[in-house]
C-alpha cells in the first residue's frame, strides 16, 4: 500500500504575547487508502493538523515540516493557486457544523453544482444529474426537492449529509472529516458516519477522522493517533485501543463513564502541567 499522505515532523506555530507557541509539535504519520482517526481533547492540535495538510492556516500561523507529501506531490511547495486545484478535487474536508459551513443564501442544489463545476468541465444537464445521484448516495430520499431548499430549511443531520455530498462529488482521493458529527444527535451520528464509511470504501479513498470521541473513532477507523498538547502520544490499531500503552490514553479511557457503570468515583487524569 503506497503512502497517499506522508507527513514528517509537522510543526504549526502561532505568535503570542509570550513568544511563539507551537500548537502542533512535530507530528509524523503516513496514510494509505485506509481510515485513520486522530483523537484528542481541545488544544491537542488535532484540528490544526487537518488544516495544515490543506494549507488552510493563514498568517500569523506558520507551518513547517520535513515532509508533507500527497500522492507524490510536495504540498509545502504548492502555491495558493495550485492548492486551490488540489482542495476539493483531490483532498476534501468536512467540518463540524453545517450551519456555519454551508452558504445560507444559496440553494443546496446550486452549492453542490458549484462544487462540481469548480473542478470538472461538464454540460449543465450532466452537472444536475450528478448532483442528484450524489444526494441519493448520501441517502437523501427526495433529492429533487432538497436541491431547491436552503440550508436553514433542513435539519442538522441532513445538512451534514449535504456537506458530505458537496465534498465528495469531485471524487477526491482523501477526505479529512473534522468532528463531522459533534453537532448532531446520537441517532443521526451513526447514520452520517455510516455514509462516510460507505463512500470512502466504495471509492477507495483515504479518510482522516478527527474527533474527541474515542469510541467513535475506534468504531470507524483502522488506525488511531492519540494527540495531546500538539504531540502524538500513541498510535495503535483501532481494535487494540483497549490495550493502549500510554498513560494519557489509558487515563482518558478510564475516565469516561460507561453504561454499566459501577464505580463510585471516576478516575481523573493527573493535573496537567499547563494548568494555571
Amino acid at each position: 500500500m503506497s503512502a497517499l499522505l506522508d507527513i514528517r515532523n509537522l510543526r504549526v506555530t502561532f505568535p503570542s504575547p509570550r513568544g511563539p507557541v507551537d500548537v502542533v509539535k512535530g507530528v509524523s504519520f503516513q496514510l494509505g487508502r485506509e481510515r485513520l482517526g486522530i483523537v484528542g481533547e481541545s488544544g491537542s492540535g488535532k484540528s490544526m493538523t487537518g488544516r495544515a495538510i490543506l494549507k488552510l492556516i493563514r498568517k500569523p500561523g506558520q507551518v513547517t515540516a520535513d515532509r508533507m507529501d500527497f500522492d507524490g506531490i510536495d504540498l509545502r511547495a504548492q502555491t495558493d493557486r495550485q492548492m486551490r486545484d488540489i482542495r476539493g478535487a483531490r483532498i476534501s474536508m468536512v467540518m463540524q457544523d453545517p450551519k456555519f459551513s454551508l452558504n445560507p443564501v444559496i440553494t443546496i442544489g446550486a452549492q453542490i453544482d458549484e462544487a462540481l463545476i469548480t473542478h470538472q468541465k461538464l454540460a449543465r444537464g450532466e452537472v444536475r444529474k450528478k448532483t442528484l445521484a450524489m444526494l441519493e448516495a448520501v441517502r437523501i430520499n427526495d433529492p429533487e426537492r432538497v436541491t431547491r431548499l436552503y440550508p436553514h430549511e433542513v435539519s442538522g443531520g441532513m445538512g451534514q449529509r449535504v456537506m458530505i455530498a458537496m465534498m465528495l462529488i469531485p471524487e477526491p482521493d482523501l477526505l479529512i472529516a473534522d468532528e463531522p458529527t459533534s453537532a448532531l444527535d446520537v441517532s443521526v451520528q451513526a447514520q452520517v458516519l455510516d455514509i462516510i464509511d460507505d463512500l470512502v470504501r466504495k471509492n477507495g479513498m483515504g479518510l482522516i477522522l478527527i474527533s474527541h470521541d474515542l469510541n467513535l473513532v475506534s468504531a470507524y477507523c483502522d488506525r488511531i493517533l492519540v494527540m495531546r498538547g500538539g504531540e502524538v502520544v500513541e498510535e495503535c490499531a483501532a481494535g487494540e485501543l483497549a490495550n493502549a500503552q500510554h498513560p494519557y490514553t489509558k487515563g482518558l479511557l478510564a475516565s469516561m463513564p460507561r453504561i454499566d457503570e459501577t464505580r463510585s468515583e471516576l478516575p481523573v487524569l493527573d493535573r496537567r502541567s499547563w494548568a494555571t
Partner: protein
Amino acid sequence: MSAIAIDNLDVSYGTSKITHGIRLAIAEGESFALVGESGSGKTTVLKAIAGLAREWTGSISVFGAPRSHGIDRGFAKHCQMVFQDPYGSLHPRKTVDATLSEPLTIQGVTGDHGRRVEAMLDAVGLDRKFRFRFPHQLSGGQRQRVAIARALMLEPKILLLDEPTSALDVSVQAEILNLLKRLRREQNLTYLLVTHNLPVVSFLCDRLAVMRHGRVVEIAGADQLKTGALADPYSRELLALSGGHPKT
C-alpha cells in the same frame, strides 16, 4: 412529599406546544435524569420549573408548594440551575468573587460574604487564587465549577442541571461529574439532570425518564439502564446507539 411533582404539563412557545402531558415525581435526595435527543422537550421542562418558560398548563409543585409561572424571589433559595455552556453562563465583566456574592446580595443574606465565597470555592475544588479572576482567565472546567458554586451559594435543596458536562472535554467531564456526585452526597441535594449522554446517567443518577417529541416515553431505574432492561423500543434504540457504536 416529593421534591418535585409535575402533572399533565404542557409547555408552549408561542403557538407551538413543546411538551405534552408530562408526569413526573422526584423524591427528595434523588438524582433524576431527563434523557432525550434535541427537540425532545427535556430542557423545556427544566425551564418551566425554574420559571424561565412561562406559557404552560398543568401543575408543577416543589416541596408541596405550587409553582407560579414566572420567577419567584423566594423560590430562588430552594432551587437553582446550572447551565450547559460554561462560556455563556458567567458575566464576562464580573470577577468570580462578584459572581458568587451577587446572589447573597440580592437575597439580603447577612454576614461576611467574603468568607462564604471562599468556603464555596473550597467546596467546588477551586483554589482561592481564582477568586478575583475574570471568566476569560479561566478554563472551561473551572468556569463550570464557578457556575456550580454560584448555584449553591443560596444553599438550595434542588439543582436543575442542563447538560452540565456536554461542552467539556472528556477528562474535565470526569472531574465535574465526581464533584457533582460528592456535593450531592455531602449536602443531600436533589438533582434533576437533563442530558443526552446515557453513561453520565448511569454514573450520576438513580432514575431516568426518556423523552421523545415532548412526551415521556418511559420511566426507569438506573439499574435497568445498566443491564439494558429498558421496555420501550425507542429507549432501547437510544441505549444501543449510546452504549457503543456498531463495530465495537
